[in-house]
Each structure stands twice: as structure tokens, then as C-alpha cells.
């Protein structure tokens, strides 16, 4: 079976709302002020969103994830190399899970 009308409606609807949100962000931003509180708020959004993405994953993670996260951060701060830090993180979590039997 390839697909069904129901699946097509669902996928089309999901695609439409996902694009609408992304487009609305850019279009609404044109009506926001460039200075003052709103501008300061916008400038803090990227870091805050990333912190909100990372923090719960680290808190709910096992010891293996915490060790790997520390290793990732150390490698990045030492080398400033995104790929090296990422690869080290994935390798560390693999090793730590083997070692800890998690």
C-alpha cells in the first residue's frame, strides 16, 4: 500500500501549519520595533531557545549522557571545532553506555 487520502490530508495539513508559522515569524517581525525592550527580547531569543532545548535533555539523561555532554563542551572550548566536539560526544556516549551497561 502506497498511501491513503487520510494520510495525505494529515501530511498536507501539517506541512501548511509548519510553513505558516515559519513565514509568520518573518512577516510579524517586520512590524516589531528595532530598539528598546522588544529588540532586546528578540536578541535574547536564540540563546534562550537553545538553552531550553538542551537543559531538559541533560537533566533527564543518564550518567552516560552527562559524561558525554561534559566531554563535548570541553572539546568544543579547547578546539572551537563543532564537528570534533559533536563526534566526541557521540563516541563518548557510546563508550559510556558500554562501560556503564546502560
Amino acid at each position, binding site marked *: 500500500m502506497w498511501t491513503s487520502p487520510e494520510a495525505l*490530508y494529515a501530511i498536507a495539513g501539517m506541512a501548511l501549519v*509548519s510553513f505558516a508559522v*515559519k513565514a509568520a515569524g518573518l512577516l510579524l517581525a517586520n512590524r516589531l520595533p528595532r530598539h528598546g525592550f522588544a529588540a532586546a527580547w528578540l536578541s535574547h531569543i536564540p540563546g534562550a*531557545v537553545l538553552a531550553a532545548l538542551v537543559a531538559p535533555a541533560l537533566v533527564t539523561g543518564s550518567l552516560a549522557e552527562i559524561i558525554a555532554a561534559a566531554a563535548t563542551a570541553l572539546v568544543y572550548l579547547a578546539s572551537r571545532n563543532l564537528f570534533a*566536539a*559533536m563526534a566526541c560526544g557521540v563516541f563518548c556516549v*557510546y563508550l559510556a553506555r558500554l562501560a556503564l551497561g546502560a
Partner: protein
Amino acid sequence: MSRIAPPAPRFADQFYAGARACLPVVISVAAYGLVWGVLARGAGLSLLEVMLMSGLVFAGAAQFVALDLWTITPATLPIGPLIIAALIINLRYLLLTATLRPLFKPDSGVKDALKMALVTDENWAMTVLEMKRGRGSVGFLMGGGALAYVCWMATTMTGHILGSVIDDPARYGLDFAFTATFLVLLLGMWKSRADLLPWAVAALSAIIASRLVDGSWHILIGGLVGSLAGALADKVRHVD
């Protein structure tokens, strides 16, 4: 032929630079794409449905949640909840694409809004990082987005095809690629001690929210509360 100097291919240069800059972060896209493809097969999506969803929806978190709601029997497919879930999970893109406004001309309209379809967490973060260094452009954003798109399509399809072979992606640590990537991107955004308060508030409220509400609400809540805390702190500092 050689007398006529070709115009500087600025967009193409920026496009290539964006794709190159996103190459390391796209590895987490690939890891997640493989995982999603494997899980999508298990949830009962056909290869065609995987291609349609990855190609049209193109949003990792929303697609993962959709797998929870998906049913193998078309008659019982919860179309409304699937669409509402995608809307809620992607609401944070409102915040993300708003920060890209300085890249566009003040009178930018529908044509530029269409380009937002290629915005992902990854190329957005790399572009914002570039903007903080006084660079960044629409071409840079699109280059990273195009790479992420091709990679997402290829790996979700591969995951679906290999579904029966890779039974447990967590065994290879691939599930950690997401956390590692965003952690590194966050560290790269550090500018001054003024960042500490909004980040800490965002992290704390996201942790609390993730325990209280299901789905990806904690990302939106943490991002909103943390950035508002940062803006308030800035205001207090300027009053002094």
C-alpha cells in the same frame, strides 16, 4: 569572452559558505533522520508517506511526535490532532524566523516568506551565529537549509529502507547527536555575562515545563521566559 568580467556570484558564494558551515551540524540531522526513518517504518508509514512528510513538513520534532499519533489503519488516523500537534511544536519557529528579519530588506514580502520553508534549527543557529559576527546573508541561510533538506530526505528514506536492520539506534549513541550539537551551538553563542541570566532562566523553566507538560512546549516556554528575563535585565541595567 574573457573581456567581459562575470558579475560577482555573491549569492552562490554565500550559498556555498552556508552549506559548508552547516556541514558539521547536518550530521545531527542525518543521525535524527535515520532514527526517524526507522521509527516511521515501525509506526506504519509507507516509503511514499516518509518522502511526502519529510519533503513537505520538514520539521524533525513535529515529525517525531506525529509518529506517536500515527495509526496503521487510515480510517482511524487522527488528522486533526496530527495538524494541531505540528502547529504547537513548530510555534517556536515564530521566534526563530523573527530573528532573521535583519537579513531581509524592510519591504520584504511573500517571496522572502517562502524562503522560510528551508529554515531549520541547524541553519538558523549557524546563520544567527554568523550574524553575531557581523556577517550572514539570505544565501548563507539557504545554503545551509538546502543541505539540511537533502540530508533529511536522504536519511529518513534510508532509515525506512534499512528499518529492519538498525533495530536500536541508541546503541550507537546516535540519539545523543541532537543534544551534543545544540550544546555546542549554545556555547558558541556566548558573548558576555549578560547571557548567563537568560540562559539559566530558560534552562530552569524548560526543565520545569518539561515535567509538567507533554510534547515540545518546554522549548517554547523556556525560550520565551528566558529571553524576557534577559530583556528585563537589559532594561534594568540601562536605567542604572
